């Protein structure tokens, strides 16, 4: 029992260490290697642009259902006009970044791990190395930078769409006064909430990029190995996002205290 716990702990520490090595290599690569604009733009389109549908749909339905549930509770104590502010703050500080992170981990993270994993088992990564190209420069850096650029924008898009859906459901379905709704949203949502969402988006971008690239680069031989890489990437990135989000919420609440 103790042996298996110890073995699990060691393998977890080794995994963290290898992720940290990849992070260091990525930073070195950004500094010393030639910048590949085309690859970056292609990745921004692939990761950012093509993730919009899933992020918008997730944001809108989450905003709508959160509004409905909040309204059902608040209306009992005559506070239905406060729904907008509660929904807005919850979306900026927690739900927006977390749900966007989970959606992007599922869509882009899986795609990154599968693509790099396939390149690994078909010797394309060895071919890159044989041609004098460092795999981190060519494969990891563009994806990390693309996620760092795309994630904050996707988080804002998710939150924006969620608030729009919240407004529509609140005013058109639940009968909340539109001006009161918007007034409360603006009054109780501050720059601190937007900053918190952006910081979380950036942190989740790093988690998704590093975990997905790592899983791809370390894919085992054969169809099973390539198939396992995206699954592992989604599971590890999603769990990491949820766990890191908990600690990040407390830490960021000290820097950007809720209004």
């Amino acid at each position, binding site marked *: 029992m103790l042996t298996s716990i110890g073995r699990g702990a060691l393998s977890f520490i080794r995994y963290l260490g290898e992720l940290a090595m990849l992070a260091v290599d990525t930073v070195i690569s950004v500094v*010393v290697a030639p910048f590949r604009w085309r690859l970056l733009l292609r990745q921004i389109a692939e990761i950012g642009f093509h993730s919009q549908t899933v992020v918008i749909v997730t944001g809108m339905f989450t905003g709508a259902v959160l509004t409905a549930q909040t309204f059902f509770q608040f209306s009992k104590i005559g506070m239905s006009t406060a729904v907008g502010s509660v929904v807005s703050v919850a979306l900026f500080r927690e739900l927006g970044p977390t749900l966007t992170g989970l959606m992007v981990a599922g869509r882009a993270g899986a795609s990154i791990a599968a693509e790099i994993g396939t390149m690994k088992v078909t010797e*394309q990564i*060895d071919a890159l*190395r*044989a*041609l*004098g190209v460092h795999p981190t420069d060519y494969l990891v850096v563009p994806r990390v930078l693309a996620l760092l650029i795309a994630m904050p924008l996707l988080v804002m898009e998710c939150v924006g769409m969620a608030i729009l859906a919240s407004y529509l459901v609140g005013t058109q379905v639940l009968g909340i006064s539109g001006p009161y709704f918007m007034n409360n949203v603006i009054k109780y949502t501050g720059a601190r909430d937007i900053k918190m969402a952006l910081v979380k988006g950036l942190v989740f971008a790093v988690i998704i990029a590093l975990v997905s690239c790592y899983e791809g680069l370390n894919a085992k031989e054969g169809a099973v190995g390539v198939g396992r890489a995206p699954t592992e990437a989604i599971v590890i990135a999603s769990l990491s996002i949820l766990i890191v989000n908990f600690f990040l919420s407390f830490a960021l609440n000290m820097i950007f205290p809720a209004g």
Partner: protein
Amino acid sequence: MISVRDLHKTLGTQEVLRGIDLEIVKGETCVVLGRSGGGKSVLLKHFIGLLQPTSGQVLVDGEDIAGLPERKLGAVRKKVGMLFQSGALFDSMNVEQNLAFPLREIGIRDRKTIAERVHEALDMVDLLGAETKMPENLSGGMRKRVALARTIVSRPGCILYDEPTTGLDPITSDSINHLIRRLQRRLQVTSVVVTHDMHTAFHTADRIAFLHEGRVHFLGTVDELRASSDAAVQDFIQGRSGDCD
């Protein structure tokens, strides 16, 4: 050009290479023969730094590349090209882009020069007209040819061939063998061919190194190999497993 000294490599718990000493002379074609799983490809990958030895030296033009960090191997890798067993074409690029890639990586930016070099390389492998094809639309033999064109397009001084005819039919294999020989004559490159295909070995080799039990068991010319009385060498040439029905 390339030499290895007392090269040992352990993968997992298995010692694959057990003290290899081999020198590849500039301009020759050296074939590394041996059974499947005998460490031929592992040895070849050491020549270009894709694998690092457990111990021993790998000298490329006199420079020991064993233990060099990945970022310092770039210069060596520009001198030595490698044809992978699977071809390893970049499947997100068409044939032309695959060939242009190494040229851009060595700093050639002029589109006309790149187009000329790509055309020249495709001409050498008899694949003119295949520029816009994607790798998934190529046959096994064509993939090997395109991969070979990608290897030679940047004009390396040495080409490493990892099982160039594995998985190909006899006719296509023969055309690849002729191509290897033709390229060697035209480009005057040093070549190392890893194979277990006797036809490829006899057709392309100036010298043959026979790997057995992790060591160079025999080193000599094709005629010397044929005349060898060594049991392991003869069993391999004749394809005798020693198993009974």
